[in-house]
């Protein structure tokens, strides 16, 4: 492949992935409003478009036309930079996520359905998501408001704590696949046991790891029951109390983009990525893996909403104790157990 085709294909892939991601973000908000409404016996958005499907567009327009307030007491450079930092890191982390097989493009050669394949893909995702905490922390500090500051402090302490168990819960999968490349990890999960149970890691000794990951991921994305940074009954709105219009929308987008990334990672690491039953003519065989991948990600997004409207919020000391005294020992036990099994089988 020549350098020109490489650049053109890369640009097309990046534009497509970012477009899909932003659409997914907008429609997760719609999904959240709709599902939460039905859980509470309401209708949710119904006015704009059929089933309220154009509501995200209307919201976007509203965010653009709202007055963008900047309070006189904020520390301006960081106040403006914080939402940008949050949204940039949230969107960048999608760049190494693979969502399908190799596709042939005729004379142009072919390409993997992934913006770029690096051999430390997992670490890249973890590194970029760990940088996302700066957006929240700096927003809380630069707003110069006690509720915002408390929200920012809570967010950074919570995200640093849960990052440890999140990272350790993935080590078991890495030991089993023997690689940090997301594509290799997914390929290691192909096939079935006894003819019908898929060889996904969740059914292959990593069930504990999966649940540790799931719980830490909720805390990492600041979702209920771990939404202490923006607990509205105690902190008004936490770190984004002072933000309005598009700056607020950027935090909103960052939160949902992080949810999508975390759901993608859960799919890749524990649910076998794009593997699933494939049938039909050859043209469908290229598309079906992507559909399986999207279906699994959608399942996680639905789970997020379901959990949010089911469980009450933790108390702050419970939250920290749960991370350090329950999840961390369990994650370490999972690593030791997996390493022992792999070593004894080798």
């Amino acid at each position, binding site marked *: 492949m020549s350098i020109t085709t490489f650049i053109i294909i890369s640009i097309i892939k990046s534009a497509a992935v970012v477009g899909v991601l932003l659409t997914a973000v907008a429609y997760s908000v719609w999904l959240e409003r709709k599902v939460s409404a039905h859980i509470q016996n309401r209708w949710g958005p119904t006015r704009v478009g059929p089933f309220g499907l154009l509501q995200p567009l209307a919201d976007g327009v509203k965010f653009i036309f709202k007055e963008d307030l900047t309070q006189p007491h904020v520390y301006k450079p960081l106040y403006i930079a914080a939402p940008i930092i949050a949204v940039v890191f949230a969107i960048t982390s999608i760049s190494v996520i693979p969502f399908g097989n190799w596709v042939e493009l005729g004379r142009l050669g072919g390409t993997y359905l992934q913006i770029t394949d690096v051999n430390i893909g997992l*670490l890249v995702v973890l590194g970029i998501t760990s940088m996302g905490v*700066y957006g929240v*922390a700096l927003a809380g500090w630069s707003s110069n408001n006690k509720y915002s500051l408390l929200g920012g*402090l809570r967010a*950074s302490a919570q995200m640093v704590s849960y990052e440890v168990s999140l990272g350790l819960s993935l080590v078991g999968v890495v030991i089993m696949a023997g690689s940090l490349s997301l594509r290799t990890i997914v390929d290691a999960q192909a096939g079935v046991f006894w003819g019908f149970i898929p060889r996904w890691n969740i059914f292959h000794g990593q069930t504990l790891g999966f649940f540790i990951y799931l719980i830490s991921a909720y805390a990492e994305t600041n979702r209920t029951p771990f939404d202490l940074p923006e607990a509205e009954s105690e902190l008004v709105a936490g770190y984004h109390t002072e933000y309005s219009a598009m700056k607020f929308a950027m935090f909103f987008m960052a939160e949902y983009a992080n949810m999508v990334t975390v759901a993608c990672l859960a799919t890749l690491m524990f649910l076998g990525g794009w593997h699933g039953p494939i049938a039909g003519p050859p043209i469908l065989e290229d598309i079906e893996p992507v559909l399986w991948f999207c279906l699994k990600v959608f399942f996680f997004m639905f789970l997020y909403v379901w959990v949010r409207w089911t469980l009450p919020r933790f108390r702050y000391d419970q939250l920290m104790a749960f991370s350090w005294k329950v999840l961390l020992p369990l994650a370490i036990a999972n690593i030791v157990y997996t390493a022992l099994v792999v070593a004894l089988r080798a």
Partner: protein
Amino acid sequence: MFHLILFLFFGAICVGGAVNLLAQSHPINSALSLIVVMGSLAAEYLLLGAEFLAAIQVIVYAGAIMVLFLITIMLLNAGKEERTKGSRVAILIGVPGVLIGGVLVTWTLLHRSDMPSVPIGALKGDPSDIARLLFHQFLLPFEVTSVLILIAIMGAVVLASRPEAIARRHYGDEAPEETRELVASGKDH
């Protein structure tokens, strides 16, 4: 060629961030400059071919340690530091001193060192290579370092736990003054 330009670019950002760290008068800005330095160092590692090291640099230093720096600054609510006039001696001796030191170190590294120079992208930075080095050749230093960190953690826990809180936990709210002193001195068991 393209890699060399990127290498120089990130090197310049790294030095710029380091200078900005010293020049800023607000601790938050200094901490953010340090994050920029860490990030551009990670980019330099990446360009040299040590991608695992680059990822670890971002996760550990930029993503975890600097967050703790930031939390500390935010908790202490450290304000702007006051400008002093600076000392003439520091400028007269310090600036030439730094320049001479820098030139000496560069010259020694370039002409009097046995270390071979590595072309860009040629370092072997695969996770398995690093693991082999850590768990074979450098196993003892690696394990000793982890014990050192464990000791530091235990020290921090001891320093952070307040004697009054421990006394209350063991003897209830009405612990007499003598008991508290006993707990504080560590002679209660």
